[in-house]
């Protein structure tokens, strides 16, 4: 059977851009047509490969600090006018990146051209940025040790998540019932992690396992969100601050403290969804 137009319809189905009726008929079609079923598998494999291999970069803290300094400077300069100043990045080094691929100029420039601010100038913003930079440097200095520990922990958490996903070892106790998962974990650990099922909020509990993190066995809760797996490592709270949210090899990591525990979530869902979810589990966000 030759399926005319099925390719775009299939892509829309996989991308979540098909309506209910289209999705329904596509599902039925995939049962009947082996050619389209194979194309469907290819698309899913492509997505999995892409999200595992292509990282999503997060804004560097220094950039964020500069944007905040710009806002502050704009607030102080005048309520009425001209927010258009931002301190320059210091120490520009520009690696000589040549490019082999080409793009087309599709910009309609609806937001005005670069003439608005083509160079950065030091004005009132400079002083504020200086203060922000000093404060930032001090914070870096005092937190660098914790940060290093956090880096290792985050990398380890991502590795555990990837290993479990690849080896199909995601779940050792499969249950959506928190009263099954919690005693199973308590029996294998020297602490008893709080376990909640949040399927009403779109995050069904699918099970749990015992993993290793930081050389200690750790409770791992496995949730689903749409087609994504979310691993949440739960361990007793330590004196270190929880690691900052990061992206490692395309996986987002978010953590929180609460209920006497430290919660570290690893998943390929978007960073803000993950952060909210982890905070919700830790009890930082009140139950709706």
């Amino acid at each position, binding site marked *: 059977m030759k399926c005319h137009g099925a*390719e*775009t319809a299939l*892509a*829309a189905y996989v*991308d979540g*851009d098909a309506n209910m009726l289209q999705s329904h008929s596509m599902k039925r079609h995939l049962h009947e047509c082996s050619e389209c079923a194979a194309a469907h*598998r*290819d698309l899913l*494999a*492509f*997505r*999995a*490969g*892409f*999200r595992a*291999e*292509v*990282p*999503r*970069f*997060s*804004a*560097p803290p*220094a*950039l964020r600090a*500069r*944007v905040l300094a*710009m*806002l502050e400077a704009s*607030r102080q300069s005048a*309520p009425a006018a001209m*927010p*258009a100043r*931002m301190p320059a*990045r210091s120490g*520009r080094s*520009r*690696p000589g*990146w*040549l*490019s*082999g*691929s*080409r*793009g*087309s*100029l*599709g*910009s*309609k*420039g*609806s*937001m005005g*051209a*670069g003439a*608005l601010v*083509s160079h*950065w100038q030091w004005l009132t913003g400079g002083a504020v940025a200086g203060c922000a930079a000093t404060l930032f440097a001090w914070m870096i200095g005092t937190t660098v040790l914790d940060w290093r520990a956090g880096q290792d922990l985050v990398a380890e958490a991502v590795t555990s998540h990837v290993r479990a996903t690849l080896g199909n070892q995601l779940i050792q106790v499969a249950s959506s019932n928190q009263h099954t998962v919690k005693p199973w974990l308590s029996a294998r650990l020297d602490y008893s992690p709080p376990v909640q099922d949040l399927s009403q909020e779109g995050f069904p509990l699918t099970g749990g396992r015992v993993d290793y993190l930081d050389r200690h066995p750790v409770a791992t809760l496995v949730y689903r969100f749409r087609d994504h797996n979310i691993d949440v490592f739960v361990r007793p709270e330590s004196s270190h601050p929880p690691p900052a949210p990061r992206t490692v090899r395309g996986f987002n990591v978010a953590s929180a403290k609460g209920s006497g525990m430290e919660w570290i979530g690893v998943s390929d869902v*978007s960073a*803000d969804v993950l952060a909210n979810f982890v905070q919700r589990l830790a009890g930082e966000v009140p139950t709706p």
Partner: protein
Amino acid sequence: MGSPETRFEELVLPHLDAAYNMARWLTRDVHDAEDVVQDACVRALKYVDSLQGSDGRSWFLSIVRNAFYDWLARNRPSEIVHDDTAIENAIDHASPGPQQVAVRNAELRGLAAAFAELPLQYREVLLLRELEELSYKEIARVVDIPVGTVMSRLARGRALLQRSPLLREMALQSMGSES
């Protein structure tokens, strides 16, 4: 309606990561990406009063994209190709010339490197779909093209990347594990 700064904090600032990620994949350079995002932030603050509704993300990303193309025209005009057929030819006879090899970033391997080398018009729609998870409609708004063009560029971009040997390997593995 609050002050522009407050509106910026509420509607634009939450999408700083998305903006940086987009600029990072378009410029393929850490520092250039920061320049583009800074420029976009200045523009966004100036125009934030004109933002209707609450969809700050695609609004801000379209500003980032405009800032990027302005930056490109100033700094790497040779990358801008107006003729689509030239792009197609360049891909179809893709032999890795010295320029393409220079593109390869040491921190990227395999699929990520192949993605970084993809022509801009495919790279931008793919990153918006796969990394930022925007809908077709949102992508159409950011890139300022019809939804139909979004779909055909996604299909073409995916087809180009699926030639990557790594993906082929993964596809084979997934077929094996299902049987």
